[in-house]
């Protein structure tokens, strides 16, 4: 029996979808690291929610309390596309001193897992590693988990992004990059 015959159409569709999502993330990371921020904004749906909660150290029986709540508590980010567009405008003006001279960033996305498909929306879990270096010696290293809702249309778009950083006390003075 040939290997080809053993691949069903649904398996093939699954592989292609996995490939499409991974290629989307590769392109996204490239846009961020190339500082093509306005093109990055195009990957976000108009109604996107970009949420990065604050982690707390909690008892084993309160796992739901470990991260602050979206639209309720203090968070690192809990905002929409207009806010993100303002952040981009701030960075590109040459007068946002926390990003002038600009950071050199490297975004790596891994462990991409399409966890759920519902209608035209995919829920995707992944891990991120972001290194950010500025000037001679400012070094920030962010790692964590991400849960995205990606919407399928003519292209994929990010409809919702949850960013779970492993740090509780942030070990960086600023969050001037995107995750």
């Amino acid at each position: 029996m040939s290997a080809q015959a053993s691949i069903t159409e649904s398996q093939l569709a699954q592989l292609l979808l996995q490939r499409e999502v991974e290629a989307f993330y590769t392109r996204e990371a490239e846009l961020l690291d190339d500082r093509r921020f306005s093109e990055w904004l195009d990957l976000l749906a108009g109604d996107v929610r970009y949420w990065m909660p604050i982690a707390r150290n909690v008892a084993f029986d309160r796992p739901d309390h470990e991260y602050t709540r979206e639209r309720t508590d203090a968070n690192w980010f809990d905002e929409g596309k207009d806010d993100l567009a303002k952040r981009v405008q701030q960075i590109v003006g040459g007068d946002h001193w926390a990003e002038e001279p600009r950071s050199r960033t490297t975004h790596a996305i891994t462990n991409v897992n399409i966890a759920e498909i519902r209608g035209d929306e995919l829920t995707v879990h992944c891990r991120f590693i972001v290194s950010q270096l500025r000037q001679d010696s400012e070094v920030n290293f962010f790692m964590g988990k991400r849960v995205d809702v990606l919407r399928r249309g003519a292209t994929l778009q990010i409809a919702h992004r949850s960013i779970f950083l492993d740090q509780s006390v942030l070990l960086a003075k600023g969050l001037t990059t995107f995750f």
Partner: protein
Amino acid sequence: MSIRERRDGVAGDPADGIVSREIFSSETLFAKELERVFAPSWAFVGHTSQLAADGDFVLSRVGQESVIVTRERGGAINVLLNSCRHRGMPVCRYDDGNASVFTCSYHGWSYDLGGGLTGVPKLNEGYRGGLDRSQWGLIRARTEVFYGSIWATFDPGAPSLEEYLGDMALYLRDLLQGPDGEDDGYEVIGGIVKWKMASNWKFGAENFSGDHSHYPTHLSVNRLNISLSGKAERHPFAAVKAPFTFLNVAHPGGHTVRVNLYEKLSPYESMWAAVPEVDDYYRKCHEARQKRLGDRARLFSRGGIVFPNMHYNTGGRTTIGVWIPVSAHETEVWRWLFVPRNAPQIVKDTLRHFYMRYAGPSGMTEQDDMENWTASQRGTSGVWSRRYPFNYQLSPADAHRAWPEPWLGADAMVVAGVSEHNQRAFYTRWNELMSA
């Protein structure tokens, strides 16, 4: 003379606007600072709204030390050193929660919410009846609640909080009044914002004390109009056109505030036009506050510090923070975000969103402040740069006592306009404690 001799103590000559760079970089001075500046002071540790139920606790800090802030049955609030009397382990390992007892995970000594030692393994057979549990409770801080804010000191010789604050009590009370002027009018929203930065704690402290001349810092955020006034700038109150005098108010204890004193009681001018429901709320509050406070409602506070390391913002963004001294070169920052307790949900949501976009590591304003504080820090330790002091001589106008209104505080020393008066007062107090 290019290298000025220190002639007035450790800091240099702060009353004349000369401050040594070494006070930011010397680890020897840092160690002394923990004893002389932090140990005898009162520390802000939290707010009663964080402890809604009996048994609730939160971790906080007094200086560098971890403390547990607890609410006992009946509502009494305690601040306990989070360090087992047996071997020093933290007896509380969680940022917050509800408990009736804290049991050390090393040898099992356990303590109640007031810090009393309730359980010791082998108490009866192991100590020949000789362990007096009343002598081995958790170290308890002197604790005071001031209009909802919780304060603590471990120094038995420190004055009462009231005496420690002096006239600053007026401004702290004002901070904690809701926009309608009601006392204890705020609550903390969930999640304390915590981060570290490579800067001495005093750079943040002096900035909050009264730095009104760092205009280039915020050029980028100002052009983006993040204020919700619907107009340019980043502060909602920048939209108000009623005439006022900007005042730098310094108190003898090193506490300082920045306020707008309006010439007269004026009708509400829109500050939150981008969200009409919020604007409507603030309009009603403006009228209620004038009714409640009378002439004193002309005071519009913008921010300040309670010496040494508590800092706050008002003027539409009520936040309280502390600079936790880690080393001469590193500071941990904690920030509590407040919303008016009785406000409609849309007001609370709008303010929460505004803070996050404005302040802290994700804040479009404070990102650039921290760039300053960390970059200034690098300018304090060079073998040559550290020999040349910093300049705080901007607007060395004579300060007026209890001016222009006596109710600003009998001992308040006030300078109008952009000035480094408050920074001079901060370092003068620091110098007194360090040189004693």
